[in-house]
């Protein structure tokens, strides 16, 4: 998030696109609801009629995969009606003219056609957004999990720049991170392109810095992403994998392919709390301790580094992940030993500029938000305050591109996937909580009542969902939450693994994210 969660309370307009906030970030949704009660306007764009759409001033039930067209359509209106922030653009941005050229093609009529919404709603949303003094955009994987995910994010950035909502309190571009420390994992360089602090592995001066800091010879070649690792494993090029606290056999797209990949490995190490679906494939399973059994830090979606504190001793003979890694590193020749995670944080801050001022002592009472470059820095509530960090805000001319797998005669429905309030990721944890299973015991498929009626599917009936990669059987839930050609299935459940259906074709060019939000499927009644 460029801005902070509590700033949501004072915003004038909330634009939610591709986030079912009440289910995936329930506490952030409470801030939103309070802002709305106070008078903030709300725009919701989502293929599902989510809870917050009921409170919206404009609800846009867009076709999955059309975020860019919608955003371009809104920006077309804002440009046409001259509702944009000319002074801000002049002072703080570049590439405006090239961007403007592209947007010209996206009249509300064109956008409405692509998104399958009413053009008046696009116009209304555009005016609301542009006229709000402080407008914040909130999004999650409904924007990013597309073959054009990066384009979606850049279009959001364009819209925000266009109305001068960058570097302003209670405004900004606010991705809500799904997992507890997905922000921190990326900050720490658990990605194939970056060392900690987004320092690029392919830059010689960066490599040199880390070679010196770590006293090691490093590779300047960008590594493989999750999806690429699976592909290389299947081809036999990747021989060894070490999977810590992840469950790709449920969470990753095209599971049949993951299954082949993991089987093809020479050696697999899985480190987890439970014997997960993925751990079954391992040659060695290491028992890790839970968050309640260790010290450390997580970085939340507003960049706040907060303490994790040990409440109990490690269960059984398990060990905290940092201890296990430290033990293995020692055996691989690592000279430094850590007796407590605070010592690791000391090393982190010595090589990560954004974390330079973060110590356990300083975050004892309350977490600090990065960038926090030195010990006297109070942390950063919202980004780009005095000036845009890269110098000028860059407008990106972005064209809409169709999803990779669009419906056709054989596979006529768009399947989209997502999360539910009562479960977390692959249910390794929440699946073991009796009350949560009581509230949400099984998976289901949302299907429009007209579609269900046309196919003769009753509420609660089991149906077969088939894609080009696999099939699953799931219980139909008849609803008006989805459009007639759209289906929704949550991805949490191992006994109804929707990722047997999803694909890994044409990953997003920049982020390598799979298009989990759009899969073409067909339905079959069981026994028919």
């Amino acid at each position, binding site marked *: 998030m460029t801005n*902070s969660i509590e700033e949501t309370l004072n915003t004038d307009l909330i634009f939610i696109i591709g986030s079912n906030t009440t289910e995936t970030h329930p*506490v*952030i*949704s409470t801030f939103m609801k*309070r802002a709305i009660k106070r008078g903030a306007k709300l725009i919701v764009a989502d293929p599902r009629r989510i809870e917050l759409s009921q409170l919206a001033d404009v609800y846009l039930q867009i076709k999955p995969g059309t975020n860019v067209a919608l955003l371009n359509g809104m920006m077309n209106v804002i440009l046409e009606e001259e509702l944009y922030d000319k002074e801000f653009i002049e002072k703080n941005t570049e590439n405006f003219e090239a961007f403007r050229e592209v947007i010209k093609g996206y009249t509300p009529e064109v956008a409405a056609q692509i998104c399958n919404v009413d053009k008046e709603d696009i116009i209304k949303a555009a005016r609301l957004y542009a006229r709000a003094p402080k407008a914040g955009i909130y999004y999650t994987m409904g924007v990013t*999990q597309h073959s054009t995910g990066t384009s979606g994010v850049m279009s959001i950035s364009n819209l925000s720049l266009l109305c001068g909502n960058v570097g302003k309190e209670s405004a900004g571009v606010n991705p*809500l991170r799904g*997992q*507890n*420390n*997905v922000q*921190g*994992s990326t900050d720490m360089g*658990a*990605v*194939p392109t970056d060392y900690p602090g987004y320092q690029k*592995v392919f830059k010689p001066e960066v490599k040199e810095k880390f070679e010196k800091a*770590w006293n090691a010879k*490093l*590779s300047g070649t960008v590594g493989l992403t*999750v999806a690429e690792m699976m592909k290389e494993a299947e081809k036999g090029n*990747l*021989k060894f994998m*070490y*999977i*810590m*606290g*992840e469950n*790709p056999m449920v969470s990753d*797209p095209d599971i049949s392919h993951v299954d082949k990949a993991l089987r093809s490995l*020479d050696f697999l190490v899985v480190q987890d709390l*439970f*014997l997960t679906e993925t751990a079954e494939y391992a*040659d*060695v399973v290491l028992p890790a301790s839970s*968050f*309640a059994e260790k010290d*450390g*830090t997580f*970085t939340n979606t507003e960049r*706040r580094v907060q*303490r994790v504190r040990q*409440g109990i001793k490690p269960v*059984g003979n*398990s060990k*905290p992940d940092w201890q296990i*890694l430290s*033990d*293995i*590193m020692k*055996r*691989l020749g*690592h000279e430094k030993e850590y007796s407590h995670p605070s010592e690791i944080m000391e090393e*982190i801050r010595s090589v990560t500029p954004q974390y330079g001022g973060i110590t356990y002592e300083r975050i004892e009472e309350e977490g600090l938000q990065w960038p926090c470059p030195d010990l006297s820095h109070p942390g950063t509530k919202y980004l780009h305050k005095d000036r845009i960090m890269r110098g000028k805000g860059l407008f990106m001319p972005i064209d809409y591109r169709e999803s990779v797998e669009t419906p056709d005669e054989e596979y006529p429905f768009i399947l989209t996937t997502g999360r539910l309030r009562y479960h*977390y990721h692959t249910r390794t*944890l929440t699946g*073991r*909580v009796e009350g*949560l299973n009581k509230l949400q015991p099984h998976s289901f498929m949302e299907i429009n009542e007209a579609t269900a009626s046309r196919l003769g599917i009753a509420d609660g009936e089991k149906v077969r969902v088939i894609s080009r990669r696999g099939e699953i059987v799931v219980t139909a839930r008849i609803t008006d939450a989805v459009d007639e050609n759209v289906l929704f299935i949550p991805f949490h459940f191992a006994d109804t693994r929707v990722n047997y259906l999803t694909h890994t074709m044409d990953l997003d060019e920049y982020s390598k*994210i799979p298009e989990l939000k759009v899969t073409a499927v067909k339905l079959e009644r069981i026994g028919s």
Partner: protein
Amino acid sequence: MVEITVNGKKYQVDKGITILEACNRLGISIPTLCNDDRLEPYGACRLCVVEIKGRRNLEASCSTKVRDGMEIETHSEKVIKARKEILDLLYSNHPEDCLTCEKAGECKLMDYCYEYGIKKGSYIGEKKKYPIDESNPFYYYDPNKCILCGKCVRVCRDLQGTSAIAFKNRGFNTKVSTPFDMGLATSDCVSCGNCVANCPVGALMPKKPEKFRTWEVKKVKTTCIYCGVGCQMYLLVKGNRVVGVEPARGKANNGLMCVKGRFGYGFINHPDRLKTPLIKRNGKFEEATWEEAYDLIVNKIKEIREKYGPDSLGGLSSAKCTNEENYLFQKMFRALIGTNNVDHCARL
């Protein structure tokens, strides 16, 4: 700033705040059952009454703002008498089961009755007799213990934004209810438990999978693991078990939580937890020592790297692990194995 006199002593306090807030800041304790600094003043319990010079009646300090020159008595004879009367009325219509009540030790009514010396209710007569709503898997509502402070109703409506509960009936028959009194399970309730966290008495209580008294547990402040909000919370620890979770006030959560964070802790001490390293031999997992597991892993890393080069190895770190662990994981792959093949499920 304005000048006020509290219990004969002069203070400078901020303009526009309530007497209750001013006294809190000055360290002068005034009892209250219905006040919460995140909610609008409500003035329901009247326990916070104070005497203000020149005013005929006692005033609720939670809903009276300070004025320049105000002279306030927080514990005068008249005030104490009124508070005792209020506590007497509340306790007279309250089950006298404090010995076994789950709230004992953290009950505001108990604390204030102790402070003001209310040993028993002096109003003999009818008492509330309602069924307990047990329909939610994580907590129950016992209307008989409810003192009608309205905190749960206001937290649900004004902070959580769900409005699953409201007051029903009037006078003696008033109770907190879901629509048509059909119970929490069939209401809009999302099981966040934010009402439970703010109930001053034992009316809204978590169902405890394990029995414990409040004074038996240690509270450890930590960060929730269930999404990127980073809610601050306390683990309730008894022996080597996590027996509950309570919300803490953090910048990102303002004392609120959701159902997963608040009640999804059962996995921690779950019998399925892996308790020892496992090595697969002939297709079956066998228990092993840490030394055996480490030796095998390190030998394999060295062997494969030697034979196929460092880029034939790869690792998935975790968005569920700490910063420190993610840092070590990528450092291990980069500095000790020699490859940038490290990623995690940021995209999934």
